[in-house]
């Protein structure tokens, strides 16, 4: 066999690309601990003062809390509605099944701008007041297709003969769902729920259009940046990042179940 003594161009290129991908974020995190308000090197010293500012700021804290609430409600609704729908299209076969599956994935194909505007326009015509509930509605329709995809992928691999076996042993339909189906596909549903929360947590476009007087975390970052240079944005951003990453790392535990 020939030994290759080529210069590892591809490896270097790949490493450079990865640096390009991660550098900006690492910088933000780094500078959230910077002693001064400067955004350039040299680094002046480690401090937590920006974090204290954030925690003391009612604007930021209420935004974080709003994001949490919207996220939880969105995920609760998404998991329930999405699981039921996924069961319907995988357990039964009926005309139009495949079209329906495509239809329910549709919102993921549309730009957030369009969905945000369409919802806003509807709310104004129907004279619905904008609030965190309208934001939740927007998040729900945005996140649902992703969860639906995860759930249907898992259920495509599920042997429904297991449900028949449960019925054969005396379990009614609801008991079968509770004691057999849901426990078995559970890990994938959890992974989907974590992905759903992460998507809602980070969502800014639809939120921008459908929110009333409040703020969610990404939105408060956006408006703060537009108005001024506030170093505590670094800290808030890092918190936002932390939230997203926690969910991703958590989801990894359950993704194995999905990817047999």
């Amino acid at each position, binding site marked *: 066999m020939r030994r290759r003594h080529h210069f590892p161009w591809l490896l270097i290129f790949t490493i450079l690309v990865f640096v390009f991908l991660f550098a900006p974020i690492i910088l933000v995190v780094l500078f959230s601990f910077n002693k001064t308000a400067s955004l350039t090197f040299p680094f002046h010293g480690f401090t937590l003062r920006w974090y204290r500012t954030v925690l003391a700021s009612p604007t930021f804290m209420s935004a974080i809390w709003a994001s949490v609430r919207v996220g939880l409600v969105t995920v609760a609704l998404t998991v329930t509605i999405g699981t039921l729908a996924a069961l319907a299209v995988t357990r039964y076969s009926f005309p139009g099944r495949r079209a329906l599956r495509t239809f329910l994935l549709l919102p993921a194909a549309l730009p957030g701008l369009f969905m945000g505007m369409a919802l806003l326009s509807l709310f104004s015509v129907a004279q619905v007041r904008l609030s965190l509930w309208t934001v939740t509605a927007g998040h729900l329709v945005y996140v649902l297709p992703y969860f639906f995809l995860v759930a249907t992928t898992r259920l495509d691999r599920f042997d429904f003969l297991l449900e028949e076996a449960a019925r054969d042993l*005396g379990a009614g339909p609801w008991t079968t769902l509770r004691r057999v189906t849901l426990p078995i596909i559970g890990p994938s549903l959890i992974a989907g729920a974590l992905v759903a929360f992460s998507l809602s947590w980070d969502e800014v476009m639809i939120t921008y259009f459908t929110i009333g007087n409040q703020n969610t975390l990404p939105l408060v970052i956006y408006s703060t940046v537009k108005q001024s240079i506030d170093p505590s944005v670094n800290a808030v951003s890092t918190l936002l990042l932390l939230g997203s990453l926690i969910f991703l790392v958590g989801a990894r535990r359950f993704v194995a179940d999905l990817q047999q």
Partner: protein
Amino acid sequence: MSDPSSAYLQIRSVTKAFGGPAVVEDFDLGVDKGEFVSLLGPSGCGKTTLLRMVSGLEFPDSGAILLEGKDITAVPTHKRPVNTVFQRVTLFPHLNVRENVEFGLRLRHVPKAEASGLVRDALELVQLPDFGERAVRTLSGGQAQRVALARALVNRPKVLLLDEPLSALDLQIRRELQVQLKEIHRELQGTFVYVTHDQEEALSMSDRVVVMDKGCIIQACAPEELYRAPGSMFVASFVGTGNVWPGTLVEHDDRVSVVSVDGVLMRGARSADAGPGDKVAIVLRSEAVRLLRGGVEAVPDGLCSLRGTVGTVLFVGPVINYKIDVGGRRLTASRPSSEDQSGLREGDDVVVAWRPEDAPIVRDTAACLQTSGAPDHTEKGTT
């Protein structure tokens, strides 16, 4: 022989179609309490659909199913005192062996102490006494199906249904489990309905075999009778290793019928229902014909014989199969490999001989049994 109208499990004129031609057509069957009945037939003959209708996973389009005289046709699955062992492994992967077996008991709120005793007994019955805490994925195929059996039996079902439970297993395991199943049946004296396409399996385990094709019963009788006196060419071809040669019945006396096969006259057992001129087939079981060295050994009295040449010799293990060329047809004859095989090499002249009473003569039909019990014959061409 059970009369369908008073048996323990009655299947009465059941028909089922899935939007096309009927998969099960006007099916009548009675199963006695404690009987081990096999439904035997090729893929697509409707046997699994029938089983599912008994368990409640499908509903018949017309007809009825009665258990102990009560009509259970419209009763949903989870309320029927019937349990199934499925073809694929359907053990719940998120529960261990013990939890799987006690699943049905827990659903009926059987007290914990009593339940664990029943589970222990069930696992002992299938010879897996220490497997209670094992995880499902650590089980082999055979072990998994045994646990599935325990899981079904622990509920003391009135009827146990088995849908080709051994078909996915290796041959040796299959053979062992067949014996175990028969022993369990004898010990419990339960009512078992077993679906399979493997005729050896059906013959070895059942009290009665019901041969099915295209949704109806072709023949239903004890295994020996099925083998020795097949009712039709379909059954004769499907069951056992035989040479089934179509021909025309020429004449008969009280013991023997003479059949003309491609112009050659052959003698077989007296046909019960065919007359001269009917299209029939003669069945020469490969182990029922004797091979005599041509020109060396004499044909014993009373035996019918044909001359031929040895074609291919196949060593199968316990037997050796000989493909003999006999006047344009190929005949398979088998001999125990422990016997002396001299003079039977490829190209040798042989004489194939058999006693007429060992060669059943069957009518050339694949028709369904009618409710009246008498077979309904419609002439069909040779298959």
